[in-house]
């Protein structure tokens, strides 16, 4: 389902973007290997979302080139859109429609055969079968995000952009999203993930790139990034449980639900 090429699935060269006089991206270079997860780290306003919007053809760069799945975002945006899916910061679901109708809508717009079957399959994979006939407006934040990601995966796009996929989620929902992302990576999907949570990057990413003031200032594996600091000194510190550990122990649910998520879901009709 994923075409593995030697060429990186995402290649960004000297991309710049300014809003009026405010430069946001000042020459970004970045490669994401096919089938890998790259976490793009950066504080608010670092330009993460701008870069994702350029790569997903929502925004045009001022200069530089970017290819996604071998297609240039400026000259072949239609081919790029066929190869990607975008999950933005705000769950892009239609609240008036039911979960199932949302999935059918996306399957129809991707011209897949049997949109109903694909929708049911996705609902099952994301543990939303029971909620499938309810309007998305009634969903919790975590369910909405799962539906959002399920909608993005209809048609199995080989490249997935996740822009701060866990912002605003509770710890359980966050872990569910992480499990989905890990499963996608096992299936060979290329993922570019932006986050401001350092632990999220540690948990998920094959490589981590740090975007700061419009430039990539570091790019490497977690081990490589750790070597940038002086060698660790050994100190003995009493291990206190974090509040997250306590919370998860008390509610006793680590969100196995979404673990089943991701896999296959629908074939292209052409």
């Amino acid at each position, binding site marked *: 389902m994923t075409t593995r090429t030697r060429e990186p699935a995402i290649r960004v060269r000297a991309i710049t973007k300014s809003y009026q006089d405010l430069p946001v991206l000042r020459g970004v270079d970045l490669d994401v290997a096919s089938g890998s997860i790259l976490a793009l780290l950066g504080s608010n306003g670092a330009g993460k979302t701008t870069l994702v919007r350029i790569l997903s053809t929502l925004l045009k760069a001022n200069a530089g080139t970017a290819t996604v799945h071998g297609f240039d975002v400026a000259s072949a945006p239609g081919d790029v859109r066929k190869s990607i899916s975008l999950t*933005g910061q705000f769950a*892009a*679901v239609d*609240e*008036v429609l039911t979960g199932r*109708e949302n999935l059918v*809508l996306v399957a129809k717009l991707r011209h897949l055969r049997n949109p109903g079957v694909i929708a049911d399959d996705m609902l099952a994979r994301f543990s939303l079968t029971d909620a499938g006939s309810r309007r998305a407006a009634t969903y919790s934040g975590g369910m909405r995000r799962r539906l959002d990601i399920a909608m993005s995966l209809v048609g199995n796009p080989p490249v997935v952009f996740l822009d701060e996929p866990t912002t605003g989620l509770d710890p359980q929902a966050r872990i569910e999203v992480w499990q989905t992302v890990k499963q996608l990576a096992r299936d060979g999907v290329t993922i570019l993930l932006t986050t401001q949570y350092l632990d999220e990057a540690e948990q998920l990413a094959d490589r981590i790139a740090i975007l700061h003031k419009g430039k990539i200032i570091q790019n490497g594996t977690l081990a490589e990034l750790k070597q940038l600091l002086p060698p660790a000194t050994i100190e003995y510190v009493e291990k206190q449980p974090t509040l997250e550990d306590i919370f998860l122990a008390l509610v006793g649910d680590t969100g196995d639900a979404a673990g089943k998520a991701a896999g296959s879901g629908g074939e292209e009709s052409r």
Partner: protein
Amino acid sequence: MTAHALSDTGTLTGRSLRHILRSPDTIITTAVTPVALMLLFVYVLGGAINTGSDESYIDYMLPGILLITIASGIAYTAYRLFLDMRGGIFERFQSMPIPRPSVLWAHVLTSLVANLASIVIVTGVALIMGFRTGASVADWLAVAGVLILFTLALTWIAVIAGLSAKTVDGASAFSYPLIFLPFISSAFVPTDSMPGPVAWFAENQPVTSIVDTLRALFAQQPVGADIWIALAWCAGTLVAAYAAATAIYRKKIS
């Protein structure tokens, strides 16, 4: 990609029509104000209004009421478009291989269907209140044609508002002047009863020619030059609003 333009527009229109089916109050609300105006004018004010003709007052004022119905109905189009833009769903569509005009056309076609539904309701109430016409099938088709063209022209104005509004209120506020336009026209009283400058404005604004055309069609009178003036106004507004809306849209998505 263009091969899918029609099917994608159809799919997206199905989506927003479902929004209307789930909140039919948007159609009811659209119909309530014109119906209330109709009651007010026919049963309260109408007796004192001399239209200078022997037709019943409801026959005289229904065309204007229908235009008010459309002018208030298109506010919902701007509102729905604005909500789509503000939520993430718009960006999802933009990042998918969908012909981009399909997203706007779906809202326009939905507006057409919703407004026709409101028109049918208002016309039904008018029939109950005593509206009568000897219009032939061809006359009715002509009436429908003019109303559809008027709806399309106003809908593209609504698209401009929906695309450029900053707040929900802003997205629908643009429709108030459009709703009031029929009051300063031949819709409720003959224009020659108005003082000079007002009469001049009323004579030369688009609503009067449209109202006079519809009234002539319902009364089986010759439409004269009015129909061409009415069609020119509608077509001109449609072309200008369409050009402006697509220009704003293109700027918005690039």
